[in-house]
């Protein structure tokens, strides 16, 4: 799970049960406590939405809608269960809804020029270029997957959820997650091999 830890609030948030305390405060009617919940979860939620949808603005819309749905249905969440898996399930459903509205899936295929907010360490220009090429390749590979395969791969391999947690987040059986993730891995590997063969080079 990706949770930021850079300030006093973030330090307190690493305490076990802190998230449950925040949820209890929200249920008691403390609206401001929801801002704390967002601070704890916004980075992984927004990242999942972006990795599934592949578009920055669409991911922001998805995150906004997902948080509103989380707020409305927070009284259905059972304390002590995996909140992140529950949150991912809502986020994935919102992403699927947006994909249906948008039409055929394009996947994460943004141009490098559009990635203005991305953090980059200053370094060798050649290394930066190589890094960007690698990232673009991964984005294209993710874009070549079906939404179900992409969601399974993103949650299982990129966000570190277990098969059970990913199954809960996607609302499918664990065997389905295993199958979809394996299919996605094979496709990504084939995609990368095809591109590299075309460029007559090795793995960058």
């Amino acid at each position, binding site marked *: 799970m990706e949770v930021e830890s850079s300030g006093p609030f973030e330090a307190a948030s690493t305490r076990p049960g802190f998230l449950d305390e925040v949820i209890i405060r*929200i*249920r*008691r*009617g*403390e*609206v*401001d406590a*929801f*801002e704390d919940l*967002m*601070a704890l979860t*916004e*980075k992984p939620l*927004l*990242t999942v939405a*972006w*990795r599934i949808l592949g578009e*920055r603005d669409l*991911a*922001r819309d998805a*995150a*906004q809608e997902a*948080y*509103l749905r989380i*707020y*409305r249905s*927070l*009284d259905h969440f059972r304390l002590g269960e995996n909140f992140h898996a529950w949150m991912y399930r809502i986020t994935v459903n919102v992403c699927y809804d947006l994909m249906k509205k948008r039409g055929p899936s394009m996947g*994460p295929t*943004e141009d490098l020029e*559009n*990635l*203005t*907010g*991305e*953090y980059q360490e200053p370094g060798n220009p050649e290394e930066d270029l190589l890094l960007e090429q*690698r*990232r673009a*390749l*991964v*984005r294209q*590979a*993710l874009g070549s997957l079906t939404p179900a395969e992409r969601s399974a*791969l993103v949650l*299982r*391999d*990129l966000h570190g959820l277990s*098969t059970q947690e990913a199954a809960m987040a996607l609302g499918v059986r664990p065997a389905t997650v*295993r199958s979809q*993730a*394996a*299919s996605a*891995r*094979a496709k*990504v*590997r084939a995609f*990368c*091999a095809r591109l590299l063969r075309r460029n007559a080079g090795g*793995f960058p």
Partner: protein
Amino acid sequence: MNQKHILNLLPLWVGGDLSRREAESVKVHLSKCESCRAASEALQASQAWLKRAPEAPFDATDFAELRKEVMATIRAHPNPSFREGDGFSFFRQPSALAAACATVLVVASSFWMLNRHHTGPLSPSSPVATQAPAPPLGPLPAPLPSPSAGRAPLHRYLPKPAPQLAANPVESVPSRIEIQTSNPQIRIIWLARALPAPGPLYQPTHPS
């Protein structure tokens, strides 16, 4: 396991989704088969790329804007089920509601069972107690004879014949039937008095 089967299992093996026995079989095969080993290395390399997947293109400004938009909507339309300190938040949980219903059911059934098996004096508030007191009971009927006592005359067990109508119908004795219910405090008494018929309803006229 043949080579094709191993190649199919490799994506599961890389993700750690195989059972221990299957993973061991794949590992043994990879130590012997050159082409499968190359395929697994390519798969692992692509997985390593994925693990270093692009960071999401969002910074602190994006997060702040997202929070601002969401919080503005939430403040404008707060969830009505989240009420501050109303003391009923516990009962809004489905499990708590089910537990409360079960408790009410158990208490109600306990009271019902108590009333059913109640043998002591009834409370004054009971509607049965407001009835007129029952007249003193007559002597209990004789116990049934045991088979060894010989057969008793049958008429002893038949209902008593209705009293003969007196010459004067006004002075006729009313019949009294008492039925004792399972509750000793409740006895049903039926009183009936035979009245003379008002007269022949139909008098045939015989031609004389």
